[in-house]
């Protein structure tokens, strides 16, 4: 319950923060929401020497859409802002479905989406959502900004590709070309539980056909699983019971679950299949949605 000793800085600008990370030595961590980092530090699973708190950096607590629909989520946008967002409820069904399922209502007041992605917990919900949407992280360092697609962002449990002196400043969800539909289902035993199985599905349709699809899985492998074969099987055709069934089977195959106290591998695969089917099955035909 008591973290080890560390130095602490509270910069007031991104440049200041980056400078501190650059000069900060071997083991520095960025503190945003703190709802993942502080618990780890309390259990001494993480003992950084320097903590750089970016909560006083102005202008990072936004989420907004460009005119073309590209969504930008700032580093200090809290889960609760996304949970209450009319923008998300109208235009981002997969994200809107996931936001209320993150942790619990009090933790959602502090935790951030970008922080969650950087934390790279294999059981993190947002990672599947952003992967299904084909999103990316924008990182800023001493040399400027760069965009990192989410698929290559995580290199292992709790490890990402950010340089020690880079800060993730926003997540970007690319504009949709068709009508968005989708959802996120999470098997949790109680509010605040990690997902035993979580499934994010994001599709875009034009007319009857699916023009783009993404399916990503939480909790059924050492990291978030991009069930791309399952998603690809949906593209270029209407959503039918048959195509949904095929996608569900492929998603279950892509899963790499372990048998543990949360259930057998077989059960978890079955739940992947069930969740994919349910999410896709709830998508109404195009005409009804447009109406």
């Amino acid at each position, binding site marked *: 319950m008591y973290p080890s000793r560390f130095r602490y800085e509270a910069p007031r600008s991104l440049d200041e923060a980056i400078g501190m990370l650059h000069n900060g030595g071997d083991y520095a961590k960025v503190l945003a929401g703190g709802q993942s980092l502080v618990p780890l530090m309390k259990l001494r699973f993480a003992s950084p020497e320097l903590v750089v708190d970016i909560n006083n950096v102005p202008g990072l607590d936004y989420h907004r859409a460009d005119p073309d629909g590209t969504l930008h989520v700032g580093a200090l946008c809290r889960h609760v802002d996304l949970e209450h967002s009319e923008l998300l409820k109208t235009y981002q069904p997969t994200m809107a479905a996931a936001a209320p399922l993150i942790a619990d209502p009090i933790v959602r007041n502090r935790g951030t989406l970008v922080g969650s992605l950087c934390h790279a917990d294999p059981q993190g919900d947002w990672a599947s959502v952003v992967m299904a949407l084909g999103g990316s992280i924008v990182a800023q360092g001493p040399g400027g900004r760069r965009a990192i697609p989410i698929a290559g962002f995580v290199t292992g449990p709790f490890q990402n590709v950010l340089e020690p002196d880079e800060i993730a400043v926003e997540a970007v969800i690319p504009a949709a070309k068709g009508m968005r539909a989708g959802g996120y289902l999470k*098997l949790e*035993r*109680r509010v605040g539980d990690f997902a*035993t199985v979580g499934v994010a599905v994001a599709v875009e349709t034009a007319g009857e056909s699916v023009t783009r699809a993404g399916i990503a899985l939480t909790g059924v492998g050492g990291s978030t699983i991009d069930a791309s074969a399952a998603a690809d099987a949906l593209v270029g055709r209407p959503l039918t019971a048959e195509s949904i069934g095929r996608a569900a089977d492929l998603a279950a195959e892509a899963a790499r679950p372990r048998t543990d106290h949360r259930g057998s591998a077989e*059960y978890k695969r079955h739940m992947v299949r069930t969740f994919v089917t349910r999410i896709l099955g709830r998508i109404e035909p195009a005409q009804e949605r447009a109406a």
Partner: protein
Amino acid sequence: MTQALDEIKIGGLGASRKRVEDDRFIRGKGNYTDDITLPGMLHMEILRSPLAHARIKSIDASKAWDIPGVHLVLTGEMMATRNLAWMPTLSYDTQAVLATDKVRFQGQEVACVIADDPYIAKDACEAIDVDYEPLPVIVNPKQSVADGAPVIRDDKENQPDNVIYTWEVGDAAGTDRAFEQADKVSRLQLHYPRSHPSPIECCGSIADFNRATSKLTVYMTTQAPHIIRAAVALVAELPEHMIRIISPDIGGGFGNKVPVYPGYVCSILASILLECPVKWIEDKTGNLISTGFARDVYLDGEMALRNDGKILGVRMRCDADHGAFFSDAQPSKFKLGLIHSAFAAYDIPVAHLMARGTYTNKAPGGVAYRCSFRVTEAMFFQERMVQAAADDLGMDQAEFRRMNFVRDDDFPHRTPLGFLTDSGQYGKCLDVALEAVGYENFRKQQQEARAKGRLLGLGISTMTEPLGAGNSREYDILGIKMFDSAELKVHMTGKAIVRTGARGQGQGHETTWAQIVAHELGIPAEDIVVEEGDTDTAPFGMGTYASRSTPVAGAAVAMVSRKIRAKARKLAAHLLEVSEEDIEWELGRFYVRSAPDRGVTIQECAMAAYSNMPDGMEPGLENTAYYDPPNLTWPFAVYIVTVEVDPATGVWDVLTTVAVDDCGVRINPMIVEGQIMGGLTEAYAMANMQFITFDAEGNCIGSNYMDYLLPTAWETPGFELHSEVVTPCPHHPIGAKGIGECAAVGGPAAFVNAVIDALSGTGVRNIDMPLLPDRVWEAITYHRDISGAPPVRTDD
């Protein structure tokens, strides 16, 4: 014309009086152990073993000692030089305070550090180097008794294996004969998983040894301060009168805060050595991984049945997993508590129970977690067996129970395993419950739903259980009889103070004991203050757990009030200048029978006790009563739960929960209902999500709140409570029976039976608790029973 006071208005029996305790809690002004700061106080943290079974080759604490702010590092070796490395348990075993030769469960206490603040103490714990040599691990009783199993308690003489005891109750030969006569034998095997009371507040103590006065004061999260005082006197070899145990506000007990834990002992020794107060507050991991677990018993049960549904006999074989040290807090005569109270609600001619306890590499115990010493296991086994038997016979669940109930006119009733139940109207309670849940209608809905592929289920649990341990002939803990006490002092202006030997942790004693006094003496409850928990001032009692306080301490409150009233009657006669035989009593007032307008209030009597006594009478109006209960009290309950199970996921939702509780006279109906709802929630939790398990290496899964699951307000269902049936306890002074744990005892089977009922037709007879979605799905999909016993399944 009566001038008796309105009992409800003055807060007597039956008044849903708002709680006195609330005033400080809602302001954040509670006084819990961790809220207390003493001058010069230091802080203690414990270093725990990461391994479940290992030899300790060496401990190097030198780096810990070097950290600025560290005052003392204690190891088992240091404790051993003071004969404190081991301590006796409440079950006549011994338990390690700090490990010396081996560690025997993951999380066992290995060393502790006392420092200026807990952050530094934690730093120092991390700096202690322990060299372990791993040993093979045992995580269930089958492994304990397997050939070649390592002996866990090789510290004990005459302990060649891992068996602690075998115990037998009932009539083996008679039961065998009954089974020979049976038309059908119904058999069920299951595991009541390891659980933990897990109050939100963890355990802790502040030990303060004053060298100048030689007095040791310990603030402690304890439900039984007097037992602790005696234990400390034994273990620390300090004179009992120089020990003061103060139990301040407690943030929930549920049995977790009854045993003596190594942390308490270490903080006491540290205080003595350092001559200053030492505070130890454990964290949740320490609490879950090392303190009194509950349950973890395996059942193999058989019921001999006649074709018409009559139960002819019952056989139970129970295997109890006690972890590394046998430290059950329970009456000494019964090795597995009151597990033989199973089937007390049914009129069964003969029964036989055999129990065996074994050591494993897990936390020691178990405690009575919101139960009267293993009664949770007894009633769960009972109602699961009853469900299976009714199904095996093809009989209706409700009618099978009803026809076997003990009849209303059959009390007191001797059970085949040796208990005497006191009173009840079991059939009426069942009627109320069936009507409330709409039984007939539900069965129709269930059938229609099944035709559409929806799985609805209904589960019943009916039971009577023994509360209020207990009579001195049969009940004692470490030889100390289980009476309880109350001291009542009425001041000259008629206000009063009551102290008892109980120690509430949320049950509302400060509110309810005053109500009993109000009932007996007519003094308004708001004029009575209640205190508990300080061994220097409270009369001797055995504490609050196992729902024993209303039955025993509450009875003592009534009895001491009657002693006061008897003396007040003499004072009244003196004031009214008549003889005692001419005096009548009505609530709050004595009056002259032949001239009812001539009377004196209880307050006037009180004043007289200090200012106008008759010749020869001792002044004052104060007294004490010690109550040795003649018997246990036997509340009865019917719990009915309806659920819907999603066959695709195994997730089940509760539709309705109906509870009919007959606990005799209810002192404060609002508080009684609060207790029932709390118990139902724990029942739901145990049935749905809450348990501790282990992998093959003895790693504890369930040692923090991410893994040990407690339901939130979102998952927890709503409850419909019924109080129509009131059968007073014939031997309790105010007719009350215990109630605090009933729903936790009887509830789990109702939830489990409902899910099993939803699955009827699949051939599934049992799924071990908790009925997690993956277990339910596997049962439905493969038509097989699901066991939850450790070790956890893995891919290998």
